């Protein structure tokens, strides 16, 4: 059981790290601002999400887990709205984008 959980953690955290890699590569390599924004949201959602998921078996139940999940939810909420606002700003400054 312990081993299975460890493997789960390793897989999920590695997956999360991969999405941070993807987010950075996207941010650096994509051509225009809006597609870069799209790459950024992948790291926000999946990167942090998978890291959180992977750490869940390792923290105290239930309060530690609750805090861990709320970190992710806060980033979801504020990240989603912040990227919306940024995208609107881009569109207003350059309607062709």
């Amino acid at each position, binding site marked *: 059981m312990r081993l299975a959980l*460890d493997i789960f*953690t*390793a897989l999920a*955290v*590695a997956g*999360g*790290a991969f999405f*941070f*890699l993807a*987010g*950075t590569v996207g*941010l*650096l390599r994509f051509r225009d*601002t809006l597609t*870069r*924004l799209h790459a*950024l949201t992948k*790291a*926000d959602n999946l*990167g*942090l999400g998978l*890291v*959180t998921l992977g*750490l869940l078996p*390792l*923290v*105290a139940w239930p309060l*530690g887990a609750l*805090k*861990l999940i*709320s*970190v*992710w939810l*806060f*980033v979801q*909420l*504020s*990240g989603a*709205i*912040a*990227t919306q*606002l*940024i995208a*609107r*700003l*881009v*569109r*207003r*400054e350059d*309607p062709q984008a």
Partner: protein
Amino acid sequence: MVSFLLAAAIFILAMVALGLFRVFCGPTDVDRMMAVQLLGTGGSAVLLLLAVAVEIPAIVDVALMLALLAAFAAVTFVTSASGSPAAAEDATDSR
């Protein structure tokens, strides 16, 4: 397991730090803000990994703080760049 979590933390830190090159090349201020947004998320992930790796649960609170204030910089930026909150909303669905 501890080494693995720390290695993951180093990897994520390095990744989001690489993202800071966007601040360097821009081209617009929006791109620069995006790099900081990524660093905020990555910083939260690194702190969560550290909290578990060094077994100090209170570090999760620091991540909580970062997550709560993550949008703060972006919101200030958007409102100040557009002059007023109303102007920020003008762009709503102008397709």
